[in-house]
């Protein structure tokens, strides 16, 4: 097996808007190495989220092929993708998307409900994930009792708790002040360096992109060659 974790070939994604067809991604090719930390930048509407959704198996390409690890995503059914996501992908969103009715600990345990672990194992694993993001003392807090930065840390703990290889982050610091954003970015960097997580991060913030190993620029559904933009 090569060192490439993600291989996208000739990907197009067309949305139907009323009678019109809008091609959001145009014959896009992309390879991401295992252990990379890739920042994806580009103007609004350029297709960054669409690309991230394809990488995470949340959406299917109109044409082209996507391989992530051993999985050929474009050939998989939606239920097979669900199962695959639960162990292979961690998502981190701009607005954290924690369940307000659950404590930090229980939010982090959520993905583990899909495994065979018993309650005790789930609690242990979640506690470890919370300590990695530095929030062991907030385990019993509800999202409304946490700051934005803390909520995002809980979301990161939830994303890594089932130990996926690939973390997909869509503007993870978009809602945070500079200082807090830097903390989150340092955390992502640590996950990349110390825990060998491959990370793809969409961002509008070029300072945020500096934490990544590479930056790719997207424009109108295509990727500019590296170094450009």
């Amino acid at each position, binding site marked *: 097996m090569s060192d490439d974790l993600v291989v996208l070939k000739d990907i197009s994604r067309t949305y139907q808007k009323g009678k019109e067809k809008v091609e959001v991604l145009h014959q896009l090719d992309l390879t991401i190495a295992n252990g990379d930390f890739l920042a994806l930048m580009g103007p609004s509407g350029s297709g960054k989220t669409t690309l991230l959704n394809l990488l995470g198996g949340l959406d299917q390409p109109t044409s082209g092929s996507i391989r992530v690890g051993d999985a050929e995503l474009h050939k998989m059914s939606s*239920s097979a993708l669900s199962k695959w*996501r*639960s162990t292979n992908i961690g*998502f981190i969103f701009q607005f954290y*998307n924690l369940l307000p009715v659950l404590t930090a600990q229980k939010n982090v345990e959520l*993905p583990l409900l*899909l495994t065979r672990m018993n309650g005790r194992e789930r609690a242990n694993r979640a506690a470890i994930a919370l300590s990695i993001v530095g929030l062991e003392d907030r385990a019993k807090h509800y999202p409304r009792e946490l700051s934005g930065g803390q909520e995002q840390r809980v979301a990161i703990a939830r994303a890594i708790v089932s130990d996926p290889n690939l973390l997909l982050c869509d503007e993870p610091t978009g809602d945070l002040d500079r200082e807090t954003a830097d903390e989150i970015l340092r955390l992502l960097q640590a996950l990349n360096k110390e825990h060998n997580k491959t990370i793809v991060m969409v961002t509008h913030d070029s300072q945020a992109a500096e934490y990544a190993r590479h930056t790719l620029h997207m424009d109108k559904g295509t990727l500019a060659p590296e170094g450009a933009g």
Partner: protein
Amino acid sequence: MKYFYLVWKSLWRKKVRTILTILSVFVAFLLFGLLSALNQVFSGAEDLADARRLVTLDKISIINSLPSSYLARIESVPGVERAAHASWFGGYYQDPRNQFAQFAVDPARYLDVYPELTIPDDQREKWLRTRDSVIVGRDLVEEFGWSVGDRIPMYSSIWTNTSGSQVWDFEIAGVFDSEDPRASTQMMLIQYDYFDEGRAFGQGTMGWFIIAIDSAGNAAQIANAIDTQFANSPNETKTSTEAAFAESFIGQYGNIGLIITLILTAVFFTILLVSGNTMSQSVRERIPELAVLKTLGFTDGNVLSIVLAESTFVMLLGGGLGLGLALLVVNVLGAVPLPGFYLDAAAVTNGVVYIVLAGVAAGIFPALQAKRLTIIDALSRA
């Protein structure tokens, strides 16, 4: 069930709304329980009626009596195993509002055709031996606080006795029960011989006959044979099964069973609308959250089950409490002194089935909506 915690927590997302929904389900199933018991009162008499018992009445009116000589002639009809007779006493105890059934009967014959009535042997013997004694049902004893050996004056609005008084004095020889918990025992049984000799008029007549037959299948044929015997006599008869008799008796109340069923149906659909609305509101508010669950790897089926479980749980909680309280009030406390006011196993089973059905029915559309939710659409709405 590891998802239970999630279901439970999601339910309390909007506490007041959930409590109100549970309360309305609670009230609905309390009402269901009470109305089912009431329904038993009206349909109970029919259920209690034995298909192997016939009742012979005067053809023209239940009020007219029949000659006592009919008893032997009825007994001679093939297929008749035993026959008993009963006559209205038409009285009350102390206050005209204290109405209950009093029949003058031949003790041995009557107990013979109603084997479900049970009485201790010594009390039965006492009754058979003592002409002016009566036996009374457990329900009556409880209502009036009587005990065996008490002498009670009964006022008859029909029968004057030979001493010119309408007050008859009886001794309580025993207390009987019924093996069927739904049957009322608000009844007093008087010795016919004492009653017949004591009354100032109408001697030698009997109110109606109760006939035990060999097989329910022969009921129509035997009834016909009995009535044919007395055709073209001054006292023609009408014989029917006890069930038909009970039915014609209940007919006086109109079709209450139907009305109750209609009310219950209306209640049931109201509850469906109320809780269905709550559930779909709750799903709509949670679209981003449900999408996140799917992102984490929860399948469409998982999400469907979680929403269904929530709605079923609300029903189980509210419905269980409502039905439970109804059971407590009706069966344990016996708070309503109506004959047959009772929740039997079938009514309870029905209740539980309706609770589960309502849970599924109220939750199914919101659950399907949650299942169909596509992650990208849902998240872009966030």
